[in-house]
């Protein structure tokens, strides 16, 4: 994991150092799309080939939806508190 995070940090630094290079942002954006597509393709194969994962897709989906809903609810609750205390009063 540490290697992974270092690679990420190096990427940010490289991008910042070489941001003058034309199209660097567009090219790196395209390349990350390609890597994501490839990795999700592999993830798809892994899920499809594994009976024990595939047969539980409905349960996994429900768990996913619940975690999403609770994460959003918690986030907007705290955003509401932040809004009330720090932002709304300052509106002209």
């Amino acid at each position, binding site marked *: *994991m540490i*290697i992974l*995070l270092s*690679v*990420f*940090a*190096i*990427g*940010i*630094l*490289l*991008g*910042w150092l*070489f*941001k003058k290079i034309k199209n660097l*942002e567009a090219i*790196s954006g395209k390349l*990350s799309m390609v*890597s*994501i*597509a*490839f*990795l*999700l*393709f*592999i*993830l*798809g*194969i*892994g*899920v*499809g*080939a*594994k009976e024990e*994962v595939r047969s*539980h*897709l409905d349960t*996994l989906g429900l*768990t*996913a*939806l*619940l*975690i*999403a*809903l*609770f*994460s*959003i*609810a*918690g*986030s*907007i*609750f*705290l*955003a*509401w*508190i932040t809004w*009330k205390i720090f*932002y*709304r009063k300052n509106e002209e």
Partner: protein
Amino acid sequence: MKNSIFIISFFAGGLLLGILFQDSLNFDINQFTDYALYALLLFVGINLGSDPKFLDIIKSIRPKIFLIPLSTIIGTLLGVVVYHLIFGKLEFGESLAVGFGFGYYSLSSIILTKISGESLGVIALLANISREVITLILAPFFVRIAGNLSPIASGGATSMDTTLPVILKASGKEYLIHSMLHGVLLTILVPFLVSLAIQLF
């Protein structure tokens, strides 16, 4: 949105292939994905660092603005704690890692597939796609019940790109910097927080 469909179609294609050839595949995901994952994080990093808006956004920071991503992180933590107390099917750290994807479904699902296996990878994929889609649909509703910052918080890491248009429409154009900075910071934090959640809990 076009990008999301493009990306998901690859997952679906792989899924189909996996089902068709399940008997002939003895599949170990790690042998294929190590270098692709390094490449991905390198490209995502370069992409962030080279974004001309990146420095502007970092420069325009006032201390108060950090409260918004902070609320999203603590709020997500709170939400997952409540989820875990009620349903608690997964380990707490696993649920938290999924929540800490903050809508960044591609990266979080891939990292979690690598750390924990396909099941958690799929959960992260679906949960974080849901977070994006729910924000896209419900942003105006969130503003009504929880104020103008709430769609930013709901969008998570996607508040800098995919959900930005609906956020600005629901909250107002004056929230551009808040929303962008929120998205940039959470995007940077996703790899760290996802792996931290698994390791700590």
